[in-house]
């Protein structure tokens, strides 16, 4: 525990120092990142200690505020979240030091590091907090720190707008959490987690509150609207942290809430599952339609959160129908995907940042051919792309596969429970996961292909340069981590076991624990295939190099069906690559196409633009806010300057009160 405390202290120290030193940006950024690295190392040590020993460490101090106490505890569930958080923050800090200096105004460096370390500390605190008030304070602190980080580059209108939307979304989410905690603590009168109790019949309501409150942070559709705005706006290492781990605190909150709700009705599980499916498919579809690589990645966060939601939903259904395989593998898959998504999504954001750093643009349609100039960035980005598409032999597959397996094992069970709606379950889980996987690989062949392959589509792309050494080191580390997790899959079954068992209600624990050996074999099988794949590829490419020495012709133009002088402008663009899919799903995506067709015999110019604004932002939230503003504008008539009216209000008030209250 003291390790963790020390970690928090180091983080806060780094924060304050970098704020004080903000006059000297270079110094500030070094202290800031050093603080982040040190603090995160300590936190990781603490978490590993807990996972290793298996018993959770905690401490409680008094806090001189109403309802307050500083109760902190690291149990397996918390540890499972602390590790990715600390890891990603650590790597992002290493990456961020040169990145901030490279591409941001000197005056913003110090404050941004202050908020970065603050964000790290509050995220860790959120996961470790055991008292409602402490949790809420840390939670809001996290939101605010990230809010200021989003506003780092506040000269742009879009960034300010993003910051505002983010602030509003976070606040609305938190409102639900306030009610949730107060309702949980109502019977005991205190907000300590261990004294929470559920009044009968309230479990469903509480679950919905948690789903809205935490889902806003996690970015479940349709509460995701802040996400594609805020993540592109922030500096890339911050986007990596936000998208990689910060939104996962929402998942953590949801799972933690589930541990407070023993008797969940089964519709909760179905709801979560449906939400997950919506976010998964919707997220990847909107990602396909994006031109800006960072908003593409942001929508993919929505997609992956959806996958996690599907896993958690399967787990919940497993609990409420008591099917151990679904319960264990669903939650295990979800938790593992939390880790995996943290790894490859932050990797991808760092890659995007390196590209922006090296070319000065994020527009996929203006990039291309970067693999030649930025090999390391490109290579690691490719690894990330494969991983997020859930391809073997990478980590993304393992977690998705666990979720699949949970359903499969229970479906293939000879004595499967007849009163579970199996067919819809299979369609929802397996069908949508398969669709998501296919669409994701479509999206990332587009992203990687159009950014790094082919010919440069613009001058910036042609004159790109590789990122600095620390940035490359960060990306390589993450890419390596993706492989490590994938190739040591079975180990995680055991690492996640205690965490999953904390979520599963006590009654079902030993049954759930019995799933581990049952699913160990398959996982080992998968790993064998992984190793074999790597070996086979290695062998083949070795052999290929041996033979290709003979008669190799190099440096000719691409065979373009007889056309000898292809120009970069003739390449297939990202938009055209995605357009068949966009058109197929136009009902959902509603792309806006503005076309200036060539006219006349010798057309001077022609143009084609397509953009895909967010469905919910445009058709749900926008109108709502506009409606409120309209009502307000009507109410303003009330006060239009005439003192006679004002006195009239007083007279009427007292008159009405006298007649109503005394009558």
């Amino acid at each position, binding site marked *: 525990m003291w390790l963790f405390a020390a970690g928090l202290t180091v983080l806060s120290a780094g924060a304050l120092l970098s704020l004080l030193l903000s006059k000297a940006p270079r110094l500030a950024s070094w202290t800031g990142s050093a603080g982040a690295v040190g603090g995160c190392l300590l936190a990781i040590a603490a978490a590993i200690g807990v996972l290793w020993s298996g018993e959770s460490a905690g401490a409680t101090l008094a806090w001189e505020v109403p309802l307050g106490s500083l109760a902190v505890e690291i149990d397996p569930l918390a540890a499972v979240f602390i590790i990715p958080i600390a890891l990603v923050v650590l790597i992002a800090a290493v990456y961020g030091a040169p990145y901030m200096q490279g591409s941001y105004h000197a005056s913003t460096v110090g404050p941004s590091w202050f908020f970065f370390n603050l964000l790290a500390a509050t995220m860790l605190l959120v996961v470790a907090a055991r008292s409602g008030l402490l949790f809420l304070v840390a939670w809001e602190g996290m939101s605010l720190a990230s809010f200021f980080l989003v506003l780092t580059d506040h000269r742009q209108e879009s960034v*300010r707008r993003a910051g505002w939307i983010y602030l509003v979304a976070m*606040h609305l989410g938190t409102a639900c959490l306030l009610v949730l905690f107060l309702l949980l603590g109502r019977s005991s009168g205190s907000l300590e987690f261990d004294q929470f109790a559920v009044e009968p019949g309230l479990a469903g309501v509480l679950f919905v509150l948690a789903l809205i409150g935490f889902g806003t942070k996690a970015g479940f559709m349709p509460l995701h609207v802040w996400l594609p705005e805020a993540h592109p706006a922030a500096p890339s290492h911050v986007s990596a942290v936000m998208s990689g781990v910060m939104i996962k605190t929402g998942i953590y909150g949801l799972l933690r809430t589930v541990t407070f709700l023993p008797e969940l009705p089964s519709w909760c599980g179905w709801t979560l599952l449906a939400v997950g499916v919506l976010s998964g498919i919707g997220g990847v579809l909107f990602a396909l339609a994006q031109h800006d690589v960072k908003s593409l990645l942001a929508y993919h966060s929505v997609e992956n959160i959806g996958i996690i939601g599907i896993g958690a939903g399967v787990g919940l259904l497993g609990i409420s129908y008591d099917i151990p395989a679904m319960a264990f593998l669903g939650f295990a898959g979800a938790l593992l995907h939390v880790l995996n998504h943290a790894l490859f999504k932050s990797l991808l954001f760092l890659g995007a940042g390196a590209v922006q750093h090296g070319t000065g643009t994020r527009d996929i349609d203006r990039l291309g051919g970067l693999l030649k100039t930025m090999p390391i960035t490109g290579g690691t980005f490719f690894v990330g792309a494969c991983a997020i598409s859930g391809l073997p032999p990478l980590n993304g597959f393992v977690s998705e596969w666990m979720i699949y397996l949970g359903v499969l094992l229970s479906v293939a069970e000879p004595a499967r429970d007849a009163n579970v709606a199996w067919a819809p379950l299979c369609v929802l889980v397996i069908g949508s996961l398969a669709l998501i996987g296919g669409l994701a690989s479509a999206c990332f062949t587009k992203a990687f292909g159009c950014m790094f392959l082919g010919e440069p589509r613009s001058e910036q792309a042609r004159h790109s340069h590789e990122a600095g050494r620390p940035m490359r080191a960060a990306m390589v580390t993450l890419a390596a981590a993706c492989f490590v997790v994938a190739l040591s899959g079975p180990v995680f079954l055991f690492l996640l076991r205690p965490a999953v068992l904390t979520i599963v209600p006590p009654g079902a624990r030993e049954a759930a624990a019995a799933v581990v050996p049952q699913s160990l074999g398959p996982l080992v099988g998968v790993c064998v295939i992984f190793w074999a794949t790597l070996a086979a590829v290695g062998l083949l490419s070795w052999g290929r190099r041996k033979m290709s020495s003979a008669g190799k012709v190099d440096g000719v133009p691409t065979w373009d069906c007889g056309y000898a002088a292809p120009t970069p402008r003739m390449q297939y663009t990202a938009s055209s690559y995605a357009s068949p899919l966009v058109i197929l799903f136009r009902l959902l995506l509603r792309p806006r196409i503005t076309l200036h067709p060539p006219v006349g015999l010798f057309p001077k110019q022609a143009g084609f633009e397509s953009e895909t604004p967010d469905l919910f932002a445009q058709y749900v939230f926008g109108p709502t806010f506009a409606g409120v503003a309209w*009502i307000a504008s009507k*109410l303003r008539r*009330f006060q239009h300057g005439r003192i006679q009216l004002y006195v009239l209000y007083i007279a009427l008030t007292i008159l009405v009160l006298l007649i109503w209250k005394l009558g």
Partner: protein
Amino acid sequence: MLWLLVAVPAIAALLSFALPWNGLRRVLLVLSASVHVGLTVAVFVEPPEPVLDGWIALDAASLLFLAITSVLFFVTSLYTVGYLAQEKRPATLDPTEAVRFANYPEAVFTGCLLMFLAAMTLVLVSHHWGLMWVAVEATTLASAPLIYFHRHPRSLEATWKYLLICSVGIALALLGNFFLAVSAKACPGESLHLTIAGLEQHASQLNRDWLRAAFLLLLVGYGTKMGLAPMHTWLPDAHSEAPSMVSALLSGVLLNCAFLAVLRGHSLLVKAGEGQFSRDLLVLFGLLSMAFAAAFVIRQADYKRLLAYSSVEHMGILVLGVGIGGIAAFGSLLHAVNHSLTKAMLFLAAGNTLHRCHTKSTAEIRGLFRVLPVTAVLWIVGLLAITGSPPFGTFLSELVILKGMIDGGRIVVAVAYLLALAVVLIGMSAIVIAMVYGKPAAAESSAESNPEASDTSPEPAWSILPPLFLGLAVLFLGLCVPRELSDLLHEAARVLGAE
């Protein structure tokens, strides 16, 4: 002791009317403010005896609000000194519409300021309905010239509205007092004076109907002064036209005094067993005020009016909390403290902004971070604090009030409360973010042309240290509520029969 509390500022006021030198006058202002703080500390340390056979006394509630008043006045007096030092006289040209206007003579201003303090202190310590009413009326009279300081036509209009509306309100309060007297006739034995203690002793024998009617009148009357919708109409005008430190005092202190008056009425009804009657009314007016304020905050074109409407909202929160009762009452007293500090800070920040940018329009101010870095930080901190986000005290108090609602099972009220808070947040944050961030706007650059706007000199200490202090205080209250304070709050809530 208690006499001194009122007498010191009053005498100082007379002195400052007399004194010929401005410099000395400013010294006097700060001096008397600090003496007042000292006296407050003294009465806090050892409670003094009631004087004037119980007409003037000091219970926990008085002490609480006295402390707020004293501290806020001291801080603003520091700001005032700096402000007066840089105010140009005689006549200046209004940059927006070409109207010449000349400030009041400083003697009158300072004098009224101190008189204002005396009156407010009297409101807080008076334990006699009539005396309290007189004191409240006196605050109106003392503050009117303060609002009219700039002698600008618009400030004149504001003052006129302030005077007339508040006088009407106060007249109703007087009628309320008479009704109290009538209801007191019901109880046998010698006719009792309208002292708070006296009435509360015989509360059970008071005549119900007259008592209820009296409460209605007191609520509307003092509610007008407090700025409860729909009687709040004077508030935005006065706050927007008054000099900023005066707005800070109006919002941070004066409204609290009126709130205390309303609370006294409520506690009397509670003691008389009519608690439900007053609670319902308080909840009603609380929600009404929050709703109105929310509607006017959205796309508000004038940042001082924005702050004024947010004051209306918070007054709503205060009475709402008291109306809910239980722990919420404690919460709303705590919230009174937090709101006073935060709002005073915001108004001082607004003052700095107005002084540098020469406009109150939220649309014309952009990129404050370039022009006034510290003030910009104050704006952001103020935004977060006033919208009740941690780690600021307002979060705690609003949370406690919400807890009161949830525990009491007032789900509908809780939902309305949260909705109103959310709308206010959305409206305010949109405005403040636009003001603080981004590039300085065209209006700003045009203001660059005229000499005294173009100075990018660092902000003077007098303009940033007082608000910074207040901000730190709110932050501190968010991180830790000292035992003494929470005891005082509980005691006050108990005295007022709200808990």
